[in-house]
């Protein structure tokens, strides 16, 4: 594969227990973030920032953007775990999980890195190092942009507004 993930695909289960593929979100711009609910630093920080971005984008954002949070830790992140985690802290996001193979396919499709590493501080003894990138897809499910972890909220808002204006 050369370059950005052109048209990423997945077949997963949303946090209400309903099967979801990329096609279910066509018609929306999509803000997609990969992470896991036991993540102590990177995911909470990113989800907080992205929630703030969506808040700033206001009604237009709410009408046109579907925020998705895909787990890289399917062993722990059941639909119910995702639901509890997101509804408690980041209610704009819809969680997506699934069997390990389905998660692997989604990761490959988005060109996401995630790898388990031992961590004695974690109750289960591991954390997952993963790509801290938010992807922005157009209503056809095609890659438009991505925002690495260090991208400031203001810059993300500016770029998303640019995409919304064109789309």
């Amino acid at each position: 594969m050369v370059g950005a993930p052109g048209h990423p695909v997945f077949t997963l289960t949303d946090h209400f227990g309903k099967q979801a593929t990329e096609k279910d979100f066509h018609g929306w711009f999509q803000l997609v973030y990969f992470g896991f609910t036991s993540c102590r630093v990177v995911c909470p920080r990113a989800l907080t920032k992205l929630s703030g971005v969506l808040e700033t984008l206001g009604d237009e954002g709410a009408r046109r953007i579907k925020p998705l949070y895909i787990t890289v830790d399917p062993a722990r992140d059941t639909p119910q775990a995702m639901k509890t985690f997101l509804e408690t802290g980041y209610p704009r996001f819809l969680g997506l999980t699934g069997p390990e193979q389905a998660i692997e396919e989604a990761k490959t499709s988005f060109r996401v890195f995630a790898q388990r590493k031992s961590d004695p501080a974690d109750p289960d003894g591991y954390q997952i190092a993963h790509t801290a990138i938010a992807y922005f897809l157009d209503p056809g499910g095609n890659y438009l942009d991505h925002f690495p972890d260090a991208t400031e909220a203001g810059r993300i808002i500016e770029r998303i507004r640019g995409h919304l204006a064109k789309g």
Partner: protein
Amino acid sequence: MATNAESSIAAPLKWAASLPELDDLQVGALRRMLNLAGQLPDDWSGMQGPTTMQEDFGGLRFQLAYMSYALALTHVHRLPAAPGLFKRPFEQLIEKMLSPDVWAYWHYVSTGNGPINRNQGELPAQWNPVGKDNIMYSAYIQSMALMYRYLFRDVRYAKEGALTFAVQAMFWGDGSLRFSYDERSLNEHLYWAMVERGFLGIACEPNCVFQICNQPAIIGFRMHDLVYGTSHAKDVMDGYDKAWADFGVVTADGHFNMMVMEKERVVVTPPEAPWVDFWLAALMHAWKPALVEERFPVHIAQWSVAAPHDTLWIRPAVQRKLDMSPVISARDHGWAAVAAAEVGDEETLTRLLGYADRFMNPVRENGAYYYPRRDEHFDAQGRLSVMDPHTGNVLLGYARLNVKDGLRKLFEGPLSDAHFAAPALASLSKGINVRRATYDAGRRMLALALDPVAGAADVVLVFDNAVQAGMPEIIHDAADTPRVIVAGDQLEMRFNMSRRTSLVLAW
């Protein structure tokens, strides 16, 4: 007593004489690289090292790439008004990089199953040299192409298929071994390959992620950012810091880590590897100057050996082939010199180059100054005497030509629109050394110092942006009076040059 007219002529030449210029050894080192770049395609005379199949760290790709970096640094920092001296050689180096002679090793190396990656078993052989892994080649061609674009504002490698890796063999295959990229698609490919690996880096040989070999990719990303306004380098640098935090950019005892086994997530660093410290320092100084400057004095103190005449050599790493025979090269010494130049440790640089000049058998040949290959590891006094083509052709010359913070400043992006709009030497005929090429915008004067490589030469110089502010006055000390032709905004000058000549164009 000089007349008024003589004084007005002499003044610009006096000013020009006060400007820095390349000394004889710098001119010779540069000439060696220009001569090698100008060899006929697939003529690798003088570049062949002691190992087969491009396997060592002085293989053709490394020589070609670091020659291009040295040309870039010399152009930007020492001869900024002479793009014409560097542009065609830079193209020639990129053309050579595209030769299968340089990259076809990948067909074999991609199968892995060597001592460090045996646990993966034998992998399918690959032909595409930039498709997966092999950052030890792909980052060089990426950074060379984008550096060229940045230095010369030439879109040659932005055109579709401009970086095509092809094998067109007469007696096997069907001609389908063609892998087409350009500066943008190759850059995007590498960037997303970095993303896919969590920014730890892309492997060289399968499973082997070397810190060193991912530095040129970062330099390439930065050149892309400077040209296209992206922020790939920052993304990668941020991610790199986080990914390497698990292993340490630096070991517990203060040396740079060499590599991570990608699958096992295990760091591998040999205990005695000066080349790792110095090579990484030379490159990483572009974006981690504080770390490199803090480590360099410690490393040089640990790895260097004092020699007569206040010189210094670097104790080389001893590697072993599979049959346990030793592989020793001068690259530890060469990379130490490059790192010393980059961090601005003039004393160490002088001592390292002094050792090479005194004890490593330099030669002068066709205007070039270099150190020919020598396979004898140590001399009768037990001092380093081995020389490999990478060190002898390139690294010591790179060190001689670079300036303090040279790569770091190039990384920052020093070239402005004003640089490209200024009068400059756009091309020159063969056989001419350029020792000085500086345009002073305040004085509106372009100063050149030239000399013939061998004997007298009929010189043709072409200047860009030369008559937009009117015809320049040409002040010179040549024996022959230059003849001038103007075409558009170009000025062509012809004269016979039999000795060193100083030339000032004044607007």
